[in-house]
């Protein structure tokens, strides 16, 4: 019997992870979100709240949680309104949760992260493996939060041998809302003149599958999850039915130094990610988690184009409708 706590069940990814873990008869799932889950959550019991560190300890102890899946990051699955608040939630919230896990005797934490934590640089290998260090100093925004949390987690568990952390570094998610979807679906995605980095994507279902496997296994450390195929950024934009807008790099640098953060439009990462590729090797996840992506990046973009922003929402809506109609019987 594995008792799993999912922090962030109010996102599409959390709901899907809960549903996948429910398939394991042995698992018991408790979910916490700030709102109603947007999709069926299987056998998971959930409630909507915003807990402090002490309340976390109380909950984890009361429910005798063994595994914590931490997906509660502002800006990952819905737009973050305020950067300061997002840091508070992402970094400080994660630190509180980690402390609570250690206090409550949680065995294992599965952490959401992003492949962007390796940074984008000419010195990165063409396919980055997990032993590449995190490039914390070069990152900004959400990626910096992920990197900081990962860094903190590594230092944290280094002194607590009873606690394991598996961080899943996901390529940009295509499914529900994600910064990359925002970039690809808004008109005029920005690029830099003369640069065309390679990108990877990841389907929401594949990501959820990775989390479910990681939650129920006992492997630790970072895992890269990404599609097997690689797209050029311009190719991805064109497959999504958009025309890229190329900006001169000095202009972008100047605008950024003058404080114009909107110059890159909806591009979710720093300008270096428009220059250099950040493509990862998923061999470790395949070997140790037995995970494999079911959808290629090209397929994902086609789905995105066909169904609009919420690709998976047809199934989601169908399930919600059935649930609503069944409530009287």
């Amino acid at each position, binding site marked *: 019997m594995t008792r799993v706590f999912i922090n962030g069940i109010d996102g599409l990814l959390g709901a899907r992870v809960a549903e996948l873990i429910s398939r394991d008869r042995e698992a018991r799932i408790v979910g916490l979100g700030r709102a109603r889950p947007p999709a069926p959550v299987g056998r998971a019991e959930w409630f909507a709240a915003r807990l402090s560190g002490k309340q976390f300890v109380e909950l984890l102890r009361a429910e005798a949680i063994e595994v914590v899946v931490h997906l509660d990051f502002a800006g990952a699955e819905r737009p973050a309104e305020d950067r300061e608040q997002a840091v508070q939630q992402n970094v400080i919230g994660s630190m509180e949760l980690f402390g609570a896990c250690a206090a409550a005797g949680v065995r294992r934490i599965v952490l959401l992260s992003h492949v962007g934590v390796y940074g984008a640089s*000419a010195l990165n290998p063409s*396919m980055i493996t997990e032993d590449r260090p995190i490039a914390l100093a070069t990152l900004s925004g959400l990626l910096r939060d992920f990197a900081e949390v990962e860094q903190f987690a590594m230092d944290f568990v280094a002194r607590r041998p009873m606690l394991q952390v598996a961080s899943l570094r996901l390529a940009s998610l295509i499914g529900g809302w994600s910064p990359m979807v925002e970039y690809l679906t808004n008109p005029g995605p920005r690029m830099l*003149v003369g640069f065309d980095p390679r990108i990877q994507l990841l389907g929401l279902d594949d990501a959820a599958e990775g989390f479910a496997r990681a939650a129920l296994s006992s492997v630790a450390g970072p895992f890269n999850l990404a599609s097997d195929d690689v797209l050029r950024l311009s190719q991805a934009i*064109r497959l999504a039915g958009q025309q890229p807008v190329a900006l001169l790099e000095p202009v972008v640098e100047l605008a950024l130094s003058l404080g114009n953060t909107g110059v890159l439009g909806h591009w979710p990462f720093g300008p270096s990610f428009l220059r250099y*590729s950040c493509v990862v090797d998923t061999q470790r996840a395949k070997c140790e988690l037995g995970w494999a992506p079911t959808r290629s990046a090209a397929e994902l973009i086609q789905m995105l184009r066909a169904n609009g922003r919420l690709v998976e929402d047809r199934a989601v809506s169908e399930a919600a409708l059935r649930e609503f109609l069944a409530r009287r019987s």
Partner: protein
Amino acid sequence: MSDDTSPNGRPTEAPPTEATEGLPDVVAPGPDHVGAQEAVAGPDERVPPPATAPGADERTPLADAPPPETAAPRKGARRAASPAAASGKTSRASSRKNARAPAASATGPSRAKTGGRTTQAPPAVMETPSAETEGAPGAAAETGFDAPGAETRSASASATNWFDVPVTGAAPPPGPTASAAPSAVPATSFWSERPIELATPPSAGSLYEASNAERAAGPADTLFEFEVEVRNNVAETVTSEVSEMQNMAAGLLRLVGENMRRMTDRQVERANEILRNIDLRDYLDPDFWKGIGMVLRYQIDEQVGFIKRRLNGEYSTDPFGMDPEVIAVVRPFLRFMYRTWWRVRAEGLENVPSTGRALLVANHSGVLPWDGAMIAAAVAEDHPAQNDRIVRSLHLHWFSTLPFVAPTLAAMGQVPGLPENAIRLLQNDELVCVFPEGLKGVGKLYKDRYKLARFGRGGFVQAALRAQAPIVPVAVVGAEEIYPMLGNAQPIAKLLGMPYFPITPFFPWLGVFGAIPLPTRWSITFCEPLPTDTYDPSEADDPLTVLGLTELVRERIQATIDAKLAERKMIF
């Protein structure tokens, strides 16, 4: 000539048939020649009539306009010829011979007129027709008249040979006429000087045997006649623009005529032979053009489809960004550089495995990394297995920071030179090419050519040992001279953020043109592979093994280079 083409026959088909069979014939229907020559003379319709009208219709006012001294002798001939042509009953046998003879005979009057270019012309005039008419006394009178007529024809008939054909798109002579006509301004200034020269015509004919000159001169002289006619016409025209055009047309006629005059008998024969072998009926067949149209359309559709597909992002790359379609696009250029520009001689390609992993280790030279491209071209073009194996060269990671260069290199299958990349590629059973000299090699000064620089720290040997890939040393000779780098402007390089700034005899002085590599002759030698499977992968961490192997590879490449340099006689 089996079908007796009457002038009233299908006009479109008649002249080519004759041209095909090489018979500058009397019976060629006039109108067609007009059409043909008009087409020849170019888009400006004001020019051709003076040139063609005499051959076709003596009633054209323009033909009457020129001073009698030139027009008279030919007019008579033409009048005689026209009925003969109209009758369509000309004796084939005689006209067949006449076709040539008059060509010679015609030189008489025309030469006299243009200032007596040859002295022996008159006898030829007298003799030829009589000789010809002997065989067919009945047709004597006819032939007599026919002969000069045939001459005008043969002018236009040789025009059939020389001009008709090109109209349907085969031979070059009229090309300049057609194309040059519109560009009047520069040409006119040149041609306007020509009338002065008219008085002292080139004595080209005297350079050759008389008969040769005669034969070739026949049509040529007719051209000169036309030229004079055109010039006379020029004198009358009021509009300067028209007269300029006509001046130019006259000049061009003269040029063509002079060149024809210089041709030897053999050359004329050969040209005729070539033209005769072209079956012009093919070109008149609508299906032929339909076929060509379909081919062109297919080509265009294909290209447009390709571009559309690219613009829609419908292509795929490997994880390193290699794009086979882009490689297919640049390959012809690389083949040109390989075969024609540098005439690369590749040896020992059997040492490159046709499948499975291998690490090519080559000397680096030549400011821009052309040597990598040529090694790849050698494997793609000349490898005995002919399986179009793509060599993945490792380039300096600095190139990944350059706009346009970075995505292009990636699309071509080149990968930043990091140890992780080398090992990964080798583990994928790719053919990897490295240049351990790196910048020290490619930015070598000319005085240091063919002296191998330090081979890094043996990172390539480590990669080969870890991936258990055989090492194939490669010696490139010839690439050092493509940009003789006399100096390295380090301050400019620093300013531009470049690793070096080459000063060659041509760069930066000639700007972009200075970047054109010199066409030296290359040789690329693939040496015997050094097996690495006798080592344990863990020995990659042993500096002694690694550095020893590095030195071994370096010495082997240096020895091969020295041997090839001794063999080489000259750079180009």
